[in-house]
């Protein structure tokens, strides 16, 4: 479901989850619920009336009045430093949504699902992973998560519990520094990583790729080269390198 118009909302909880990212729980009275993978537009109004609008993916889904946003700070940004460093429980903002009818996952599909996240692109994919776990469909869903270092991984503890907790299986890829004892390689995702961590093209998975524009282009091109059908690769890009 998608609904237009701005809704008054208030921050109810903040948690620092990486050196640059924070999870915000936001109460939105009258919120109609959302599908896994959707986002919201957030509008902030300064005392002088100046307004700024940004889009943030939800880690939450379903029928709830408290939605969860995970925000990664862009140091020179206008909005994210406020949301990551300054905002406090009780602060008010406006929310429009849920938005997006394309990059969403719903129960009932017969095909396997592959999730591929770069950096803070993990947020909508966590919503999908949670929805799949709650629907008992986690066995047909895999997640490949590319992140600079362990410390930069939003939702790392939840994802580590993964399969043992009835959740989706996670393959980690570190691009800068791996944790002590790491047996795998370090660097950007390449064809070998995709062959190992992604459902084979013959199984006709639906693939969701989310991250910075360069990451999404690189991964989706490599998937097509491996034989994945372009129309089965859904993408969401949020700028950056």
């Amino acid at each position, binding site marked *: 479901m*998608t609904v*237009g118009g701005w809704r008054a909302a208030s921050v109810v909880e903040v948690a620092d989850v990486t050196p640059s990212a924070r999870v915000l729980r936001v109460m939105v009275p009258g919120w109609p619920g959302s599908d896994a993978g959707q*986002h919201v*537009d957030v509008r902030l109004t300064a005392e002088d009336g100046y307004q*700024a*609008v*940004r*889009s*943030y*993916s939800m880690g939450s889904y379903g029928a709830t009045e408290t939605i969860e946003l995970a*925000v*990664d700070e*862009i140091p*020179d*940004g*206008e*909005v*994210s430093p406020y949301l990551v460093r300054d905002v406090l429980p009780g602060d008010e903002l406006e929310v*429009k*949504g849920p*938005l*997006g*009818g*394309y*990059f969403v996952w719903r129960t009932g599909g017969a095909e396997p699902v592959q999730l591929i996240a770069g950096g*803070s*692109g993990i*947020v909508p994919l966590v919503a999908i992973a949670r929805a799949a776990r709650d629907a008992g469909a986690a066995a047909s869903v895999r997640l490949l998560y590319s992140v600079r270092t362990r410390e930069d991984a939003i939702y790392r503890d939840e994802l580590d519990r993964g399969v043992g907790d009835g959740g989706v299986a996670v393959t980690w890829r570190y691009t800068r520094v791996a944790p002590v004892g790491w047996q795998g390689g370090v660097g950007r995702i390449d064809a070998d990583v995709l062959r190992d961590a992604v459902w084979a093209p013959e199984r006709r998975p639906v693939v969701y790729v989310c991250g910075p*524009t360069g990451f999404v282009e690189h991964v989706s091109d490599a998937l097509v080269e491996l034989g994945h059908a372009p129309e089965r690769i*859904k*993408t*969401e*890009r*949020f*700028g*950056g390198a």
Partner: protein
Amino acid sequence: MRAENATSTVDGNAAAGMLWDVFGTDVTALVGVCGGCGAAAPFAETIVELDEAAAIVRCRSCTHTLFTVLREDHGTRLMMGVLHEIVRE
């Protein structure tokens, strides 16, 4: 989510809110056919240059401008470019 430079290059997913203001519904899953090159793709897959006032929506295949959305004081305006067809599959 998007970067916060003066203009950020994202994709059609991030324009869902502005497009909602024009159409009154979500259109990111609809397929647009480019009049420049004939490519057909969901609006979510377009190239979008976004800032506070506007979204320039371009074809990912040939980069021609499909349409532009302007956020104005009293509403939202969509100006057609080379977008040729809209299809609900």
